[in-house]
């Protein structure tokens, strides 16, 4: 185990930690803003699932397009969208990454390869496959990535796009964040086979199951999937088993479909705390070093709130701009 950490190296390990903390601390601010009534629309947090986006995106370059979900803050932050741009977007400001057009569910920053979170479950799978098709056609060294949940895996597009990607050897990684519930419908009640990755066999691509709360495990599995894609060896379906700690959506009643014991058990497997302990125990970094990182990240998240609250609203007349490429 210590060998694994050694192989990854201190710098990368601390970068993984910093990224997970950036997601957590930014979303904690969002939760507070929501509770204070400052958020206009729906917000889905990624708290508890940070290891997935972190471990995958650590292998991506700016030009590798990532297509995300309704629970997309973590993907956006991992791809290089800033806490300022995230919080400003959620507060409907012109300084948000979508200029206030989208809010939590419609974040875009193609400049860093973040191709959008989405209010519809599933499309990211086909879009990532398509970006891989264009990469191959245009001979660009680019890997497409789709993040999606267990919910999307029961959508027809999952099967159609993965089948075509495999048939045509496209450079794409399909990352299923299996958090066990599609909104509030348990995966166990709507699928006979509990491993989404097992479906890969039907389409002739590797299907890998990994502990989605273990950032090192995700990092290693994603590294192989991205390497394969880049080398022209085709797509991979990577299933990360994880858990959403908060309600499906902020302000939503979180009862009747899962137990308090289950939530408590998964809280005990917090990906950030587990990784911090591992880093300290293995002697990679000291507790003080980790606290220093957390303090910096917290300050950045808090400053992002101030920035967002002080940012102007978008111009009302701009709402009809960009319906077409030429006005």
């Amino acid at each position, binding site marked *: 185990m210590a060998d694994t950490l050694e192989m990854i190296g201190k710098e990368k390990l601390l970068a993984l930690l910093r990224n997970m903390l950036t997601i957590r601390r930014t979303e904690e601010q969002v939760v507070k803003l929501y509770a204070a009534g400052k958020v206009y629309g729906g917000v889905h947090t990624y708290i508890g699932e940070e290891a997935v986006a972190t471990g995958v995106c650590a292998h991506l370059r700016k030009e590798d*397009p990532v*297509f995300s979900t309704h629970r997309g803050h973590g993907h956006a932050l991992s791809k290089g969208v800033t806490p300022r741009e995230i919080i400003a977007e959620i507060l409907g400001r012109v300084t948000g990454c*979508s*200029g206030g*057009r*989208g809010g939590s569910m*419609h974040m*875009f920053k*193609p*400049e860093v390869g973040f*191709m*959008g979170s989405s*209010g*519809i479950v599933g*499309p990211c*799978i*086909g*879009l*990532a*496959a*398509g*970006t*891989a*098709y*264009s*990469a*191959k*056609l*245009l001979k*660009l060294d*680019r890997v*497409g990535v789709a993040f999606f949940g267990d919910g999307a895996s029961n959508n*027809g*597009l999952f*099967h*159609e*796009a993965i*089948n*075509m990607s495999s*048939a*045509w050897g496209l450079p794409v990684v399909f990352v299923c964040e299996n958090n066990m519930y599609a909104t509030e419908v348990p995966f166990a009640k709507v699928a006979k086979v509990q491993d989404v990755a097992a479906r890969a066999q039907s389409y002739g691509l590797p299907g890998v199951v990994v502990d989605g709360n273990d950032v090192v495990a995700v990092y290693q599995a994603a590294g192989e999937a991205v390497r394969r894609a880049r080398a022209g060896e085709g797509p991979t379906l990577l299933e990360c088993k994880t858990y959403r700690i908060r309600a499906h959506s902020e302000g939503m009643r979180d009862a009747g479909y899962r137990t308090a014991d289950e939530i408590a058990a998964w809280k005990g497997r917090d990906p950030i705390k587990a990784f911090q302990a591992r880093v300290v125990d293995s002697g990679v970094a000291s507790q003080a070093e980790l606290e220093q990182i957390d303090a910096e990240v917290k300050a950045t998240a808090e400053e992002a709130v101030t920035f967002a609250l002080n940012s102007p609203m978008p111009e009302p007349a701009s709402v009809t*701009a*960009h*319906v*077409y*490429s*030429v006005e």
Partner: protein
Amino acid sequence: MREMTFVDAAREGLAEEMARDASIFVVGEGIGARGGNFNTTVGLYDLYGEQRLRDTPISERGFTSMCVGAAATGARPVIDFMFIDFMTDAFGEMFNQMAKLQWMSSGRLKMPVVVRGCVGVGPSNAAHHSGNYSPFFMHIPGFHVVMPTTPADAKGLMKTAIRSDDPVLFLEHKNLLPLKGPVPDGEHLVPLGKAAIAREGKDVTLVGIAFMVKQALAAADQLAKDGISAEVIDPRSLAPLDIDTVLASVHKTGRLLVVDEDFAPCGAAAEIATQVMERGFDDLDAPVKRLNGLFCPAPYSPALMQNLLPTPPTIVQAVRDLLAE
């Protein structure tokens, strides 16, 4: 000038653009070596190969979504649905992604996709191979919709559609595909949003949609024998709609009949009539009239098709009624 069929002219436009721009690729069922059910891609596979003429599984939603992803990242896909009815399985991807990504990304993503497919009620084509659907897309911000009716416009609008950075629905009426007409040599582009006056006249304006332009022209021939001079307008683009050309005609004639084989409620004719009433009310000597296909799915038996669609005689009668107002 050369004479060629509608389908050959559209294919020539596609072939010229594919030669010019290597980022263009076509997807569809049987559009590869076979050349397309309607011969839309005959000969292109030999020139450009599998990567650019991609035969797909019957996964309309899947390949449409993939084309959206490809278009957002530098490629220029042409989706060949064969029959436009098959597009309905992909409607969510078209409505929620293709049409909205430019707006949602504040113009940072482009969406150069051409969606083509045959429309129209054909003989005994029945309920699943006869759709028109153009009003669906006129209703959605983000789409252009073109319905050329001549071979020259088929070529010119195909080339313009491919060069557009916006999604363009290129709808081809089945009855028009084999019809021949003159097509200019060399580079020929037809702008989006520009109607054509198919026949000049002074007593009444007929706006035809797709194949109904031909039917309206036949009706105009008939009316001319009785000394009635009908002007026939072919909008060519339904979105954007060139209402100015219609208004200028109505200014001259004072009377407007819109003929569309598609359904009346919320259709192209409803939109044209409303815009003319909003902006050309003072020019109207009679209420705007529309003539549509019956409000039911398309049937199989020839007997059931008898009264389904506007025909030259029913158009002639509608014009007489309009002139009697």
